[in-house]
């Protein structure tokens, strides 16, 4: 118990000197991680390894939703030791993806890992001989069952990924998703690029549908490392952009689900409504996805009182049309029938695989960084999380609608109670000096769930490691589980109800 009390804990958007992070023996590391993750309020936000001289340093960050802090633990695997460790995944399945990543990047063998397979075939992987076409799929030798392979290129305007179904007739018994096709070397580029504006652009391009989520996490990480103070107004502007991003993507997703239920009126109207939101973002910063809006240290596009008037007008119109259309769509028996009881993920399953964000909330798990680890914006303007119980496609469909309403209410409250002051704006600052030998972590609740950026600096204050985690990393497994025992023709509605990121996963 003593050991648990002496764990280093930091807040979201806080940094810590590397020497303060105690390096434990793997046995201690193992037992403390198990002890922590047994509790429902704790979950792993990132777990990675990086080269420190020849050795491998492991860092795990475990967020505590009750105490609103993050435990940081570490251990070192010496180069001269055998590169293998006892797998944590056999006890805590949610860690499977992190151990797989470390296995793939550094060739560390995790003993008794149930599913030790490559994650994304990065260019700097340990085993260059293994190619993306050699992925070891799970298969069954059976006369009755057949396999269906889909992708990497899909029948639509969508990113690439390979899906392998094992089916009994029309029924799916098992789905395995192989990603990595989108790998662009993002994390390595954060280190290669020396100018902070280039890094800022890179963060913007991690996932084009989560521009604000990722760029905010990046900016907060760098500002934390540089002790750069940000005004409340700037925090609120970023949060406003984040909520607009959420409304836009959720609206688009509802429309996309209508397409798959062959409800064309809904598909078209929700598509139009999404346009209204992203066109407002364009009016604000010149880009429909919010690229160029979030910059480290400040912004070129401060929110103004004039924009406030435009925004409130747009939202009033949006809300009217949205409610009218939603009222029809969500009551339509053919839509309900299509989505109800399909692709259910139970609370137990969701906890097991460690889903985050909307994918967790649809199975009655309260997980929301805005509430559990809020920054100034959400401390001053609190947000109340909503959860649903059923965990099926309809639950995800419904939750998107409910979250849109909540976000609009949050924005209205902000607009009513905050005066945006044009004199109070901060310009971007790319010349930030980062503190040497520090680690900083930033969590942001983007529309899919928590985005986590973690940066480590060397003795000169330059980045020595940069780790990005998109919520999709946790949630792809939930999509696989959703497909168990449903018809293969239900794949599209399941896939769209999650709308997970390929490039965010592949980096």
């Amino acid at each position: 118990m003593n050991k648990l009390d002496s764990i280093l804990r930091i807040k979201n958007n806080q940094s810590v000197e590397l020497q303060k992070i105690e390096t434990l023996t793997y046995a201690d590391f193992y037992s403390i991680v198990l002890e922590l993750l047994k509790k429902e309020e704790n979950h792993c936000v990132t777990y990675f390894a990086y080269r420190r001289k020849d050795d491998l340093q492991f860092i795990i960050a475990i967020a505590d939703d009750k105490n609103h802090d993050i435990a940081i633990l570490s251990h070192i695997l010496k180069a001269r030791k055998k590169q293998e460790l006892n797998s944590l995944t056999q006890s805590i399945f949610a860690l499977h993806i992190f151990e797989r990543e470390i296995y793939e990047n550094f060739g560390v063998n995790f003993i008794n890992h149930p599913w030790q397979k490559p994650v994304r075939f990065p260019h700097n992987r340990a085993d260059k001989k293994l190619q993306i076409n050699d992925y070891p799929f799970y298969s069954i030798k059976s006369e009755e069952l057949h396999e269906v392979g889909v992708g990497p290129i899909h029948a639509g305007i969508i990113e690439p990924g390979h899906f392998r179904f094992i089916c009994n007739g029309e029924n799916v018994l098992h789905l395995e998703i192989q990603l990595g096709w989108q790998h662009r070397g993002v994390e390595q580029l954060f280190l290669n690029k020396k100018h902070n504006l280039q890094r800022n652009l890179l963060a913007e391009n991690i996932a084009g549908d989560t521009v604000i989520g990722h760029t905010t996490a990046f900016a907060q990480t760098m500002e934390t490392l540089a002790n750069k103070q940000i005004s409340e107004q700037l925090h609120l502007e970023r949060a406003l952009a984040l909520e607009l991003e959420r409304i836009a993507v959720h609206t688009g997703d509802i429309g996309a689900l209508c397409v798959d239920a062959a409800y064309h009126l809904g598909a078209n109207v929700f598509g139009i409504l999404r346009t209204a939101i992203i066109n407002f973002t364009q009016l604000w910063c010149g880009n429909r996805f919010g690229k160029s809006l979030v910059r480290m240290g400040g912004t070129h596009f401060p929110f103004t009182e004039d924009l406030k008037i435009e925004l409130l007008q747009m939202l009033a119109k949006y809300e009217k049309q949205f409610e009218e259309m939603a009222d029809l769509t969500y009551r339509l028996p053919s839509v309900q029938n299509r989505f109800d009881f399909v692709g259910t993920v139970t609370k137990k399953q969701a906890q097991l695989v460690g889903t985050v964000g909307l994918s967790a909330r649809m199975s009655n798990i309260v997980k929301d960084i805005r509430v559990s680890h809020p920054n100034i914006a959400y401390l001053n303007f609190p947000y109340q999380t909503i959860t649903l119980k059923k965990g099926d496609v309809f639950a995800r469909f419904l939750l998107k609608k409910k979250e849109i309403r909540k976000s609009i209410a949050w924005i209205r409250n902000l607009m009513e109670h905050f005066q945006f002051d044009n004199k109070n704006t901060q310009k971007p600052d790319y010349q930030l000096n980062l503190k040497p030998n520090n680690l900083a972590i930033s969590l942001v609740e983007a529309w899919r769930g928590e985005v986590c950026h973690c940066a480590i600096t060397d003795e000169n204050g330059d980045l020595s490691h940069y780790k990005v985690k998109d919520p999709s990393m946790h949630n792809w497994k939930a999509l696989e589980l959703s497909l168990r025992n449903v018809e293969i023709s239900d794949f599209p509605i399941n896939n769209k109800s999650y709308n997970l990121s390929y490039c965010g996963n592949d980096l």
Partner: protein
Amino acid sequence: MIKEAKVIFHNGKQYIPDVRNVKLKAPFRGRPEISNVKVDEQALIDICPLGAISLNPISFDMGKCAFCGECAFAFPEKIKFTQDYKISSNKRENLIVKEGENNFIQFDKEAIRLEVKKTFGKSLKLRQVSAGGDNSCETELGAAGNANFDMNRYGIEFTASPRHADGIVVTGPITENMAGPLRIAYDAIPEPKIFVLCGVDAISGGVFTDSEAIDRSILKDIKVDLFIPGNPSHPLTIVNGLLDLTR
């Protein structure tokens, strides 16, 4: 039924009647204009995170530009972004804007293959391949066909199979892992076919240019028919580019 009719009535006409002449509002950043004002040239070049600005004469390569606008903020008297969204071309060098020459982006009509206009002038079916795209260009390609931009009215649509397609639209910097599948998809399209690069990542690699994880060797032996700049490309840029190429 009455409720449905009400929804349609309340939403009104949503399509943009003339996609050729839309007035977009600032701060939307389209074609840049470079004035003849003297500035610290080295500082101007250094400000661009993607190396899109070069010297003698000062020129600006939209194929490398992420339209972040940093240059215009630092040198407002030198560089100004207009709201001109018709910035696609069939020639790579036509995407380069030079100092003092404030012309519209040109299409080299002579260079367009005869069969492209003849075959695809009234109907063009495209296959989209994302090869490391970040899902913003992909979303905009989808939006080009929605109720607002309605590209389908010109007979331009995206198809599921390359066998049914007349060409390929690539987004993303072309990752090493997608180079093979992209080649297979391209080969599966029957002749005649077009090859389109959409977005800064596809045209030049963008912020990923120096990454070891990308493989752009496919561009060595395929002739590109259309370059659509942007980060991501605006649906209006996409629709106008495709129209200029095929009719």
